[in-house]
């Protein structure tokens, strides 16, 4: 492998890792702060991708088109959706054990998959990226790299920085951290925990939907796309330490590198390499890289 190819592979790894982070960040928020094992997180990702597919023609007809208009509408819908879901279902899960959480959120997966099948069907669909991002840039004379993938990486970095700023630097972030550490104490100090949890859950859902919408032009839109993402996201959350945004970012990049170079150097074991990495890290640090709360 010459140096140019190596650099391109590094770019592939970082780019894949950042996309993983976008999905996993919502999962680690919900898992770490609300203590809810949310198996339906992959479904939110899928819903996002299908929203990008379904909204594009509607936005084109009524609002004159635009990928970002569709994105904005999708985000508003997902905030409302997450808020209602927390109110109707998830808020009953905080005091219950993990088995009941798993059952409820697994049930949600089945409902969402079936609804998807009824509403949109089982075909594979493509989503067009915005025209000004549709091109490619040459990478040396090896190959070209789609501009949209680079744009995606930029968005992921921006989201990572934004999340960090909110959690570490704002009053809301302080309340969230307090709520995660000690629910009762935070409540007695005047933090409205119910509202706070609802906001966090809605934010988690929105992050997953956002990831799905952003990824749709690259990944296409197809049945079962959420399940695959769910498993790898849990790996990221466990490696990074439950509830830690910083950990999720580092873990995503680690998984990105392990997956990319695993496929290239030891293709026979590419399927399990990520899990070997997880096992090794858990042996070394059973709580994950950064444990919060």
């Amino acid at each position, binding site marked *: 492998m010459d140096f140019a190819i190596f650099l*391109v592979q590094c770019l*592939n790894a970082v780019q894949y890792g950042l996309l993983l982070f976008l999905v996993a960040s919502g999962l680690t928020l919900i898992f770490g702060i609300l203590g809810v094992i949310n198996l339906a997180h992959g479904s939110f990702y899928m819903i996002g991708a299908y929203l990008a597919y379904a909204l594009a023609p509607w936005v084109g007809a009524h609002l004159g088109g635009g990928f970002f208009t569709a994105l904005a509408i999708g985000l508003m819908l997902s905030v409302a959706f997450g808020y209602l879901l927390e109110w109707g279902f998830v808020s009953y899960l905080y005091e219950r054990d993990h088995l009941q959480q798993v059952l409820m959120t697994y049930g949600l997966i089945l409902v969402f998959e079936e609804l998807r099948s009824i509403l949109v069907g089982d075909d594979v669909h493509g989503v067009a990226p915005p025209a000004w991002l549709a091109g490619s840039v040459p990478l040396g004379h090896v*190959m070209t790299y789609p501009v949209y993938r680079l744009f995606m990486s930029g968005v992921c970095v921006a989201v990572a920085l934004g999340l960090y700023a909110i959690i570490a630097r704002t009053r809301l972030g302080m309340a969230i951290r307090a709520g995660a550490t000690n629910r009762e104490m935070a409540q007695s100090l005047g933090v409205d925990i119910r509202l706070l949890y609802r906001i966090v859950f809605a934010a988690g859902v929105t992050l997953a939907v956002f990831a799905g919408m952003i990824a749709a032009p690259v990944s*296409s839109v197809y049945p*079962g796309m959420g399940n695959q993402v769910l498993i790898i996201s849990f790996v990221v959350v466990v490696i990074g330490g439950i509830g830690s945004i910083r950990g999720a970012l580092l873990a995503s990049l680690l998984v990105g590198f392990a997956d990319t170079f695993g496929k290239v150097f030891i*293709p026979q074991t590419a399927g399990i390499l990520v899990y070997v990495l997880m096992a090794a890290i858990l042996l070394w640090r059973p709580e994950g890289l950064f444990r919060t709360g």
Partner: protein
Amino acid sequence: MTVRRNALARVTLAAALCVVAVGAGAQSRIRIGFMLPYTGTYAALGTAIENGFRLYVQEKGGKLGGRELEYFKVDDESEPSKAVDNINKLIKRDNVDVVVGTVHSGVVMAMAKVAKDTNTLLVIPNAGARAVTGPMCAPNIFRSSFSNWQPGYAMGKVAGERGAKKVATITWKYAAGNESVEGFKDGLKASGGEVVKELTLPFPNVEFQALLTEIAATKPDAVYAFFAGGGAVKFVKDYAAAGLNKTIPLYGPGFLTDGTLEAQGAAAQGMLTTLHYADGLDLPKDKAFRADYSKTYKTNPDVYAVQGYDAAQMLDAGFTAVKGDVARRKELVAAIESAHIDSPRGTFTLSKSHDPVQDIYLRKVIGNENRVEGVAVKALADPSPGCRM
């Protein structure tokens, strides 16, 4: 109380009448069991196969071999772990004479085992797993579709003829992918090329970027890819986005571009693939079939509908030879073995291992169609290694 008893009596009577009716009918009807996916990712394929089958029966006035049919259905959910239970429902509970199924290769392996053990007639209308007509082949097992090896071999032959000497292959690491690549290697060898790099990734992983970079670094003359569904869409688009399609032609079996062209869009235009069916075949049989199918079901037929239609034709050939007496199994099997099936894809016969011996078409993606370019290999038969009958 009397009212209730009355009602109960009526229900009992009705039930008894039903049993009599079913019993009387069953004597003169051949019992056909469909074991197909009616839910899940492959639901559309299962429906198309059944539609195709019923269309042929309808053309024959509702009869095969002069006997009326009775249908039994089981949804296999494309779930290998439930396959044995599901096929036993048809064989033991419903007492079917024939099982028609299925799409998923993993499910069909379990079905073939049970069919072989119970000596039940089985017609496979899609799943291309080679083992079923290879080491597991049996007199009572037939296939109306293809073996994974066939389109691969044809593409290999064409790639070599078009001057590809060094080729890279890429597929998911599972049976269908491996078998397809195996066929491609055999075909490429026959026309003077060789595979220099075999890339695989775990099923159903769709993160191709690392392997695309590998392809760019290897600089082969061509690439052969086996993917289906969402993976096929993403691979073809990623390949184009990486700019590789400008310098390295991408070949594949028909599944790479079948039913996915709307989603693949511009990325797939001009691609060459091989399959036993294509758009724009200039065959009277195909034109009639397409017209009838779209009239009956208000939708266009696909390759799966053709395979279902031909499953019914193969059974008809067998049933007709024994005048509907399915107990005369030996003659029935011999009749199917020697039949010339007038398929919408073109006439085909069956190999010793009971796979279709068929023309594989070279197709080119133009708009939303896989237009036929010509015949890649005439009357291609899978050598079916390991089959002893």
